[in-house]
């Protein structure tokens, strides 16, 4: 029967289809690697586990910089589209964005990658997160990721700590493993100690479901690595002293640097006006940065390391010490106060070194330096200066001036101690003599130093001839003892003079007098067309110095008026842990920039 034969054709059709399907299955399941990869891409998600960044602590273990949770909103365009879009208006309101801003963020995300999540909103607070966490699932493609952000709860030492913010193009190209959206230290200690603070990332591989929720670890977690937290950074800073310094420097412009002379440890670094670092790590960084950078008082400017001032009268101690070491001066030498050569103040006429420092006698030090520079050995004042200035500069540098002070502060400006070549460049070779450059004899002219340099000078005086390279982090490498090369006995007269500056009834630094403490100090009044800077360096107690410091108050007038009392308060605060000089404190706290042209 012919029709009966047709069963074979029909059966053949069944078999044909089956074999076609089998072939396709073999191809798909054994060879179609792009489909397998696609499946893996859909179902596996690699989560980066950010390590906790190291904390920054003060010398007593108090927290200077801490971590807190910030919640970023991430958006994957592909997932949103696959689920049919989302209610942008509701989302914008939920994550604290404007609809326009959200639309822009969506476009950016789309341009970056449709499969990869992009961050569309940063650093929502824990409170906001608590409020929105229950709603987020309603927006496909949106996820919340927790990240650790930096907070400096006290807002202290902002300049020293530096900025912690999102990486930029340079960081991404620096091959240090930064990825778009990562944060890193961008200045100050955060930058300097980045590698230590940062720690090591971990990763976790997940199987996710269609809503991108985590369901189970991929391959039972054998690929996962744990993050290694960053190391804590212990500073030498005394947070209490720092806080007090920032309090009394409020509403002024200037700087305080305090150093423990015996160790070179920086106890306080106040740059005024200051700002809270949190202003620059948060979501409003842009706006805050604008207002800070445009502020007339330049709060972002780290005056302790970056502001270079002429040292003024403070330099006279260095001058005297070098001269004595060279043997051209003895402490008992008296020199006439010849005000025809250079201006002076007060009523003295024929001071010895100690008196000259107390009275800050300009002609005295003009003569002292003249003995070093213009010694008549060549018969030409030009050749003399050309021959002798180099040695003088080298001696000055042994006090740390004009150097990087061991390099523990990368932001530090070296300032300037002029050398033969500098003047050759300015005036021409041997076209200058002592008479050209004499203003450096009293710390003016081309001399430039920062507050840190001056605090270090105070420490060198306190140590009677050496300093330990100043540093702000415990365990810093390369802490060295630097010798000034000036013999110990030469310091007697200088330190006695510095003590007299504070204790004498007519001493310029009498406002630095601190009950129960022998303070040694020296005022400086640095010439400035907008009002002289008030400068004071000091150390205390005289016989066993615990603290050496420099105080700068910009455009405030004479050194004794503002810088000296501030130094006194800082010394008292550090040594006694409390301040009893209420009247002095109140006067300082009330003082405001700009100061009256002639204070008091």
């Amino acid at each position, binding site marked *: 029967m012919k*029709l*009966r034969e*047709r*069963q074979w*054709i*029909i*059966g053949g*059709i*069944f*078999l044909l*289809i*089956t074999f*076609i*399907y*089998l072939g*396709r*299955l*073999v191809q*798909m*399941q*054994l060879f*179609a690697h792009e*489909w*397998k990869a*696609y*499946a*893996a891409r*859909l*179902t*596996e998600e690699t989560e980066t586990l950010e390590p906790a960044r190291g904390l920054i602590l003060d010398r007593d273990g108090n927290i200077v910089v801490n971590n807190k949770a910030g919640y970023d909103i991430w958006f994957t365009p*592909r997932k949103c*589209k*696959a689920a049919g879009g989302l209610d942008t208006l509701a989302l914008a309101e939920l994550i604290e964005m404007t609809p326009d801003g959200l639309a822009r963020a969506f476009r950016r995300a789309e341009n970056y990658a*449709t499969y990869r999540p992009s961050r569309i909103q940063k650093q929502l607070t824990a409170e906001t997160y608590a409020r929105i966490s229950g709603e987020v699932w309603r927006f496909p493609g949106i996820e919340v990721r927790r990240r650790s952000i930096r907070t400096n709860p006290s807002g202290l030492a902002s300049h020293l700590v530096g900025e912690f913010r999102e990486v930029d193009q340079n960081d991404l190209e620096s091959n240090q493993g930064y990825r778009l959206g990562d944060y890193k230290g961008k200045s100050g200690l955060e930058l300097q100690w980045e590698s230590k603070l940062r720690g090591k990332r971990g990763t976790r591989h997940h*199987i*996710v*479901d*269609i*809503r991108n929720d985590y*369901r*189970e670890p991929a391959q039972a977690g054998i690929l996962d690595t744990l993050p290694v937290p960053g190391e804590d950074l212990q500073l030498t800073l005394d947070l209490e002293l720092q806080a007090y310094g920032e309090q009394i420097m409020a509403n002024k412009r200037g700087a305080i640097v305090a150093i423990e002379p015996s160790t070179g440890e920086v106890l306080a670094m106040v740059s005024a006006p200051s700002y809270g670092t949190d202003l620059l790590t948060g979501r409003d960084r842009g706006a805050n940065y604008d207002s800070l950078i445009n502020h007339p008082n330049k709060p972002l400017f780290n005056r302790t390391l970056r502001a270079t001032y002429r040292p003024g009268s403070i330099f006279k101690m260095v001058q005297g010490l070098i001269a004595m070491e060279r043997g051209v001066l003895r402490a008992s030498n008296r020199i006439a106060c010849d005000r025809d050569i250079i201006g002076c103040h007060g009523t003295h006429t024929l001071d010895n070194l100690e008196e000259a420092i107390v009275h800050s006698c300009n002609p005295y030090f003009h003569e002292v330096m003249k003995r070093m520079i213009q010694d008549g050995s060549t018969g030409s004042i030009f050749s003399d200066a050309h021959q002798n200035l180099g040695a003088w500069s080298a001696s000055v540098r042994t006090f740390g001036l004009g150097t990087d002070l061991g390099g523990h502060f990368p932001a530090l400006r070296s300032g300037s101690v002029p050398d033969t070549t500098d003047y050759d460049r300015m005036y021409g070779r041997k076209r200058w003599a002592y008479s050209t450059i004499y203003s450096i004899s009293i710390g003016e002219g081309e001399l430039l130093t920062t507050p840190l340099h001056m605090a270090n000078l105070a420490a060198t005086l306190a140590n009677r001839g050496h300093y330990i390279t100043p540093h702000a982090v415990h365990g810093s490498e390369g802490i060295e003892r630097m010798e000034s090369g000036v013999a110990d006995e030469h310091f007697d007269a200088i330190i006695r003079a510095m003590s007299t500056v504070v204790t004498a009834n007519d001493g310029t630094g009498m406002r630095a007098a601190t009950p129960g403490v022998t303070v040694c100090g020296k005022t400086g009044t640095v010439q400035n067309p907008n009002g002289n800077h008030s400068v004071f360096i000091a150390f205390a107690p005289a016989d066993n110095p615990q603290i050496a410091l420099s105080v700068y108050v910009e455009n405030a007038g004479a050194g004794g008026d503002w810088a000296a009392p501030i130094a006194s308060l800082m010394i008292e605060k550090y040594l006694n842990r409390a301040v009893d000089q209420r009247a002095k404190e109140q006067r300082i706290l009330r003082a405001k920039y700009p100061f009256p042209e002639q204070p008091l």
Partner: protein
Amino acid sequence: MVIGLFNVASATAGASTVEWFDFSGKLGKQFIWVAASLVLAFLLLVIEGEFFIRTSVIHYAVNVLLLLAVLAVGNRIGGAKSWFSFGSIGIQPSEFAKTGTSLMLAWMLSRNQDRFNQWGSLFKAVAIVSLPAALILLQPDAGTVLVFTGLILVFYREGLSGNVLIAVLCSLLITIATILSGASTVQYPFAGAATGAWMLWLVLVLIGGLLWATVPQWTVPRRRKRNRRAVLFSFAAALLLSVGLQFGLEEVLRPHQKDRIHVLFGIDVGNPDADYNIRHAKAAISSGGITGKGYLKGPMTAYGFVPEQETDFIFCTIGEEWGLMGTTVTLFVFTLMLLRILALAERQRSDFTRIYAYAVASILFMHYAINVGMVLGLAPVIGIPLPFISAGGSSLTGFTLLVFILLRLDAERFTVLR
């Protein structure tokens, strides 16, 4: 009976497949349906086969009425008005219409001994199939209608000219060629850029003309006229089909429907979501590899990446979790079942049972071919279940009815006198 055992086994396997989708409601329901199907199977085996033969017409009529009723009062789910709802249970009459139509077809064809050499009986048979198919098309449920077209195999077995099968195959080829060429753009020498379909049409006309002109060369003179007419007719039909299809694609179908067809042929439609279902399905199957990821361990299916994974895309679950081994076994079991039904059909003395068996085989084959083909990206995405494995009460009871009536009839094969 081997088949009977397989039915139950794969039905429970299908039911527990649902378990790892966290749809405990669906799983529970599926167990109830499995139990109900077993009871139904038992009842069917108890009832005398003669009952089915005699009530075929009633069965058919009831089904047609149900299809009419569902159009009137049915629930619209997923765009198609194909469900009756009784509380939480949904019934899809189109699943049962397959059995009714098969019975009616068998009854009609076994009564008319003259078969398909007469236009009248062919027309009647086509009408029997077309009526429920048309009603289902109105729902609209294209997948089930496509299943009904599989009954052409029954016609073929019962005497329909093999040329019709070839014609169907040819029109399928023409369709594919039209879609592929229609989606491409060709630079024509004088007319500029236009759709490649023109090229296809040109080729058709050329080949047709050539054949028509060379008819004398390859045929005896007696048949020359007839063959010329056949060539002319078939090429005209092909051209008409192609032009009509192109017009339908461009002008009648909505863009997303056109996209779906294009996606099937690997044509880039510029919309990543057009082939979302099928991409995920393919990825899931592919990720299974040789041995699969293990029972309940496939992330693609377990975590919602594959759409409709407990019903239409259940083959993905098998592919991902059991790998090539699982899919091969499944394909072989299905093929074995189909061939077994063919063997059953051919051992019958009764025409009714044979025709019915062929109808069953055709219907199961269409389900199998379309469902697996869709998941493998070889057939268009048309939502129809994989028999006995996909979750869904109506389809499970529908197939139980279909197959167990056959088993009952087969058990009575010796009582029929020749």
